[in-house]
Structure formats: structure tokens, C-alpha cells
């Protein structure tokens, strides 16, 4: 098989993947729209037919507060489930942002591994989930390693791969960078 044929095959495969992504995207959009319309219709019909649950609840609440003035806020504090779930998801987001735990990393890569469908999802998630370096304690000075942190300029000397460059540094040992060979 020539390189051109291989390239053609690759192009075909890529086009197939693109078509598949489009199909999945469309079906997700269609299902979401249908679900929204259904829920909207149900609520609308209920309201239009004069069975507004909010009205009946508030009238009950009004009746309750009229008879027990002191217990006023309790029912409204119970109904703040939306807020609670919002804050918990924010927590999760923070954890994601700091460092991937092993299960998270596993899950993401498993998503990528299980099927091409889920690999699309994983790769799209990956765009936003690049994590910051973990600041796990490495060891004491005795152990030979120091603690980790975000690399301040690995750059300069370590990243330039110029052929045959030489130099000297009068301060402490220069940093080194390890990368794929």
C-alpha cells in the first residue's frame, strides 16, 4: 500500500468520524429539544387548566403561617435543593481543576478507551480539563528530591535544542527538562 493510499484511507476514516460526530450531535440536540418541549407542554397545560401547584402551595403556606407565625422560614429553606446541588458541583469543579485523582484520570482515559463514541466525549472534555501540576510533597531534602510546584520558566537553556550550543552559568545548578525522546 502506497503512502497516498494510506493517506486516502486516513482521510476516509476522518470523514467517517466527522459524520458520526455530526450525527451524534444532531440526535442529542433533537432529544434535548423534544424533552424540553414535552416538559414545557406539561407545565403549560397544567397552568392553563387552572391547576397551578405554586398557587395551591402558597395558599397552604399562607394558611400555615397565619396559624403558626413563628415557623415561617422553614419551608422555604427546605426547598433550596437547587442551591445545594449547585454548590456541590462547584466543589467538584474545583477538585477537577487542581489535580486529577487516579480514578478521574482512569475514567477519562477509559472513556477514551471504551469506544470511539466515548473517546470523542473524552477528547472534548480534555480540552477543558488540563490540570495544573499537583503540589504533592515529594520528600525531604534528605531524600534527594524537593517539593513540586509550577515550573517557572523551564525555558531558556533547557528547551532550546540548538545543535552544539554551549554556555555556562555562575549561579546554582541549572534546571533540566525531561521530555519524550
Amino acid at each position: 500500500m502506497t503512502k497516498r493510499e494510506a493517506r486516502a484511507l486516513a482521510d476516509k476514516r476522518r470523514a467517517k468520524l466527522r459524520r458520526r460526530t455530526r450525527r451524534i450531535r444532531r440526535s442529542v440536540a433533537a432529544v434535548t429539544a423534544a424533552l424540553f418541549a414535552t416538559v414545557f407542554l406539561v407545565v403549560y397545560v397544567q397552568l392553563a387548566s387552572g391547576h397551578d401547584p405554586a398557587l395551591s402551595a402558597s395558599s397552604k403556606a399562607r394558611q400555615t403561617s397565619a396559624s403558626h407565625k413563628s415557623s415561617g422560614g422553614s419551608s422555604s429553606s427546605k426547598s433550596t435543593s437547587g442551591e445545594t446541588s449547585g454548590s456541590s458541583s462547584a466543589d467538584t469543579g474545583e477538585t477537577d481543576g487542581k489535580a486529577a485523582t487516579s480514578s478521574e484520570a482512569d475514567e477519562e482515559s477509559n472513556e477514551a478507551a471504551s469506544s470511539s463514541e466515548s473517546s470523542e466525549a473524552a477528547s472534548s472534555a480534555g480540552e477543558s480539563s488540563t490540570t495544573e501540576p499537583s503540589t504533592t510533597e515529594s520528600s525531604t531534602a534528605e531524600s534527594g528530591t524537593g517539593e513540586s510546584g509550577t515550573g517557572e520558566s523551564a525555558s531558556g537553556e533547557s528547551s532550546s535544542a540548538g545543535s552544539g550550543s554551549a554556555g555556562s552559568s555562575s549561579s546554582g545548578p541549572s534546571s533540566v527538562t525531561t521530555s519524550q525522546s
Partner: protein
Amino acid sequence: MNGGEQIERFDCFGSSCAVLVDGFDGTRSAREAVLAARRSLEGWHARFSRFQPDSELSMLNDDPRIVVPASGLLVRLAAAVRFAGELSAGLVDATLVEQIEQAGYAEDLGDTLAIGETLVLAPRRTVASASATPGWRRVAADVRAGTITRPPGVRIDSGGLAKGLFADVLAQRLAGHASFAVDCAGDVALGGVARAPRAVHVESPFDASVLHSFELRDGAVATSGITRRSWLAADGRSAHHLLDPATGAPAFTGVVQATALAPSALEAEVRAKAALLAGPRAARSWLHYGVVVVVESGAFQAFAPQPVVNFAASSEPPVASPSL
């Protein structure tokens, strides 16, 4: 006389190398040491290239004898092949020359595929496993006799193991200087009598930015990944140089890069490769001393060295490089 840390950077092994030395070791200045180290690496590159038919390695691979006399360093490379197979339980097999040539890596790679394209065109992800008939088990090195024993046809690929080995050899030579670091195309060995901490940065496989940093006084770090040497195979799929020993095909496990810390660069190289081949779930078990695993989504996990190790003070080298 101390002119500060001497740094020599140059292209070698199809990548970039660097030698950093500070201090006088009693016989050589830092400048002399970095130049000598560079000469050694360039010489070894010519001697151990799989792509040069007249290299020492190619001649060994073509030799019809079962027992072949070889230079000290080549014998050590053969010992390293055995060491890698044993340490990684067969995951790292440096005798898959035929398979890697079949996969399309028979000569120096020109342009490599971009990481996005590599992952999109990759086959289904599966973790790698050891071969039922491993070639590395059939390689034996006799350091004293200076011979390598293997059935003709079992060929050795210098690959990453040679880089780790060379970094260790140079580290031994430079150990008398105040501080040194040898970056042998990503396999880094460092140390020195001053035991000064040196910052080590791990490069991201996605954009060459710094992914993680830590300090090391002595020891070694190596990084293995699938994005730097990848190409388009004849079947229109992407391929790379890290093979699944069980299938002989490039291994797409979900891990795109692994960086390992170890007492020697050779061991770090083996651990990094094994972590990548083992896949996201098992990668950590290969990173006994730390450091970083990067998965396809771009997420990464950094591990602290476990347990705490004092490489310099340990009485015996833990799973040391063979006959160093």
C-alpha cells in the same frame, strides 16, 4: 578554578541532548568534562544506531553466530535488554525489531504526526501485555567474557534503553564533580558531590509547556510517550514506536506519556515505558518512585516518590543498571 556550570547542548539520537557540569573533579575541569561527554554520546550514537548497517549493533543483529564477542558497552546493552524484560515482567521487550520495522519504523522518521491526528487515527485502546514467547528471555550477556548469547535472528533495538544506559555511564564518569546532569534525549541522570538540588521540569506532550516540576539532588528521570515518534501506517492508522509485546503492534493504552523517577536512568526508562504500556489503571504501580502520568484527555497525575528514597546513601543500588 571554577568558571561556573558548563553547559553543552547538541542534537543526538534524533533528539536533543545536554550535559551540565560544575566543578573540578581532580583530573578534569567542568568544560573538559562536558566536551568529553558530548564526544562519548556522539560516538555511541554512531556505534549503536539500528539504522546504520555498519554500526556495532547492526553487526551484532546480523551475526549468524549464537555467541558473539562484543564491546563492553554493547554487552551492557544486551544485559539491559534482559534487565528491562525482568523488571517490567515482559512489558518492555527490546527485541521487537522485526515488529517495529513492520509497523513502519525501518528508518529515521521524517515528519511525525501531530498528537491530535495520532489519537484520532489510532486503533481501539487496549492495555499491553507480555508476549508468550518473549525475545528478551533469549538474550544473555556475559560481562566478564565480553560475549552476548542469543539465537541468530533475535535482534536488539537500542531504543530508549541505550539512552538510559548512556546517561548512567556518563553519570558514573561525572560523579566526582560538584554537580552534573546528563540529558540523554529525555533520559536525565544527575548528581554530584555537592548534592545541590536541581529543578527538573516535565514537558507536556501536547504543547511542550512545563507540566510538572520538582527538585532532585541525585538519581534519574526518564519520559516515554507516543506523540514524539508517531507516523501514518500503511493501513491509514496512526502508529508509534512503543509496541505491545503480545501483539507486536503499537500500543494505544490511553496513556500518552509517562515520566518515572528512579536511581538509574535505565531503570527510570524501563519504568516509564512499563507505565505507559500498562495503561491508566496500572500505570501507577510501575512508578515506584514517582512521578507523572498523562492520559489522552490531557489530564495528568503526579505522584510523590514512594517510599522516600535516598539514592545516594543507599548501600546497594536498588535494581541497579546491570554491571554499571
